[in-house]
């Protein structure tokens, strides 16, 4: 993973199993979102492969690649709903493009997907007319439009109040329960990743690679690495004392 000459992350290697809720976590600016852009086919990795069910995402082209991409659904950080379309049209657009459903059937499907995320009755609203939390949920509904096998979530709870964030987490859990979809979630919200994660990878800014792999709760108990521990315990007890001591030596 690199931007120009700047290497963001190296030597990443992990497997996401079917039905997992896989968390990509790490401090701000470590490359979580960049990693996701590699996984969903937006940015070609500087080296390495992304395998989806055995097919290599960056080595296929044309129709084959489009078909592969359609097995993924993505919820973007800001929702990224198409602002000129209503919610129903937003969800309907992928269906319109890739299925032979009639307009009425598409609307039916859109209404059903919106109802799944708790937005029944909002079919004819434009994205700018609903709140940020609702936009994110509508983004989930759109990501599910083509019944993807793998759903990606970029910072699902960022910018939401605790209750809405919790509801979105519950939604993710429920969707996995009922649809058996594999989920890949980029987040640094502790409560959220502890609550829903069944597996995770921790990206470290300083060493520029993954330093921990496993179930978040398991890492909290079993991982010896100080940085992972600090992350999972919000800095723990040791961190606040550190800077003060060091500063005393320099400025005092």
């Amino acid at each position, binding site marked *: 993973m690199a931007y120009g000459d700047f290497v963001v992350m190296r030597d990443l290697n992990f497997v996401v199993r079917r039905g997992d809720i896989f968390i990509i976590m790490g401090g701000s600016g470590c490359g979580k979102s960049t990693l996701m852009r590699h996984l969903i086919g937006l940015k070609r990795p500087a080296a390495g492969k992304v395998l989806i069910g055995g097919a290599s995402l960056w080595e296929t082209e044309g129709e084959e690649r489009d078909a592969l*991409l359609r097995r993924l659904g993505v919820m*973007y950080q800001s929702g*990224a709903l198409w602002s000129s379309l209503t919610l129903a049209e937003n969800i309907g657009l*992928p269906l319109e*493009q*890739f299925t032979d459903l009639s307009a009425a059937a598409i609307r039916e499907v859109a209404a059903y997907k919106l109802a799944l995320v708790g937005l029944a009755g909002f079919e004819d609203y434009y994205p700018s007319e609903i709140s940020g939390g609702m936009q994110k949920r509508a983004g989930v509904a759109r990501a599910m439009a083509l019944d993807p096998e793998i759903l990606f979530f970029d910072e699902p709870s960022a910018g939401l109040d605790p209750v809405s964030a919790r509801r979105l987490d519950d939604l993710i859990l429920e969707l996995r329960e009922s649809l058996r979809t594999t989920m890949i979630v980029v987040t640094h919200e502790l409560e959220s990743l502890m609550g829903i994660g069944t597996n995770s990878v921790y990206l470290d800014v300083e060493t520029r690679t993954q330093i921990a792999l496993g179930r978040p709760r398991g890492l909290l108990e079993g991982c010896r690495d100080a940085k992972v521990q600090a992350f999972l315990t919000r800095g723990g007890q040791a961190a606040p004392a550190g800077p*003060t001591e060091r*500063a005393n030596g320099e400025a*005092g």
Partner: protein
Amino acid sequence: MVTLRSLPPESPEASDAPQLEIRRQSDNALTLYLSGPWLLREAVPSVTLVKEALEAGGRVRRILIDAGGVTGWDTALPVFLRAVVALAAEGGAHIDGSRLDEGVRKLLQLAAAVPPRQAATPRARPGLRIRTGEAAIRAWKRTAAFVVFLGEVVLSVGALLSGRAAYRPVDFGLVLQETGPRALGIVSLISFLVGLILAFVGAIQLARFGAQIYIADLVGLAMAREMGPMMAGIVMAGRTGAAFAAQLGTMQVNQEIDALKTLGISPVEFLVLPRIMALVLMMPLLTLYADLVGIGGGLTVSVSLFDLTLPQYWQETVAALTLTQFVIGLGKSVVYGAIVAVAGCAAGIRASGSASAVGEAATQCPRSLTLRTRPRDAGSSRPPVPTRCMFRLTG
């Protein structure tokens, strides 16, 4: 090591301006007496004074800071002290800050808590050679990206012709309305004024030879061949091209374009193609309209100021203009339309990062376009004499 007790500074007016007094206690100790209001809005003494004092004598091992006389402080004080700390660290001197306010000490500690990142040290401005090289590389990358974009556009036109292009006819209709009918007002205004000016400026010269009647030729030819398409093109660049750039730029920043890509929908087919089609379709119509309005402008001036009658002017215009003149103008307008649409969309698609990138894309587009349309006019065709003189007149 001798540390003298802090002596209050002797200056009597200490309270109304920030004061710094530097005293050398012994060979290797320096005391800084700070007094007065150390506020950003006051002229706070510069750190260079301390630097000079440090360099003036022998090596200083210890710097005592006494801020006992400071009556009030804000950011100015910690900023000054931080610079002193840096100077001291450079010269290997120890800072004695024990007489500093508790609050100031805390702030200094906070600022020093995390060591500065190596890469974050202010980068030296690279030399001319490096900057030229970097600019060349950037220009090359942008050109390459533009060529790729152009290639995608051509492919999408191919997809359109074979009926496989993924775009929504509704969107196409909306863009069509936005670029065409909604632009009539501004196109009318501009082309009427251009016709007016052409006639007026030309007539003054022609009147010397008693040849006012040729105003009709001048205005008619100039509008049909050059000014009509050019004015419509410039209006479209400023209005529609910028709008395209802003729309697509916002979608890019908002990840809406990413959302299309991850669905396997080509943003070029879906967003760029309808816009190019709409503009290429609308430009000839707008140009024809601009031609007529411009001729109307010329007519207004001639009839009201230069004693020509309406039938005379009409006769002369009809005689001067052939269908060929219009066709040349309309041909140009199609090219301008394509250029404006492609450049506008390219600027939008290229935008990335933040809201300011959208503004940048929107302003960059008409600027580069007006530059691009002008030389094309001057070089691509040999204008007949009246048009050429018009060019000299309007610059």
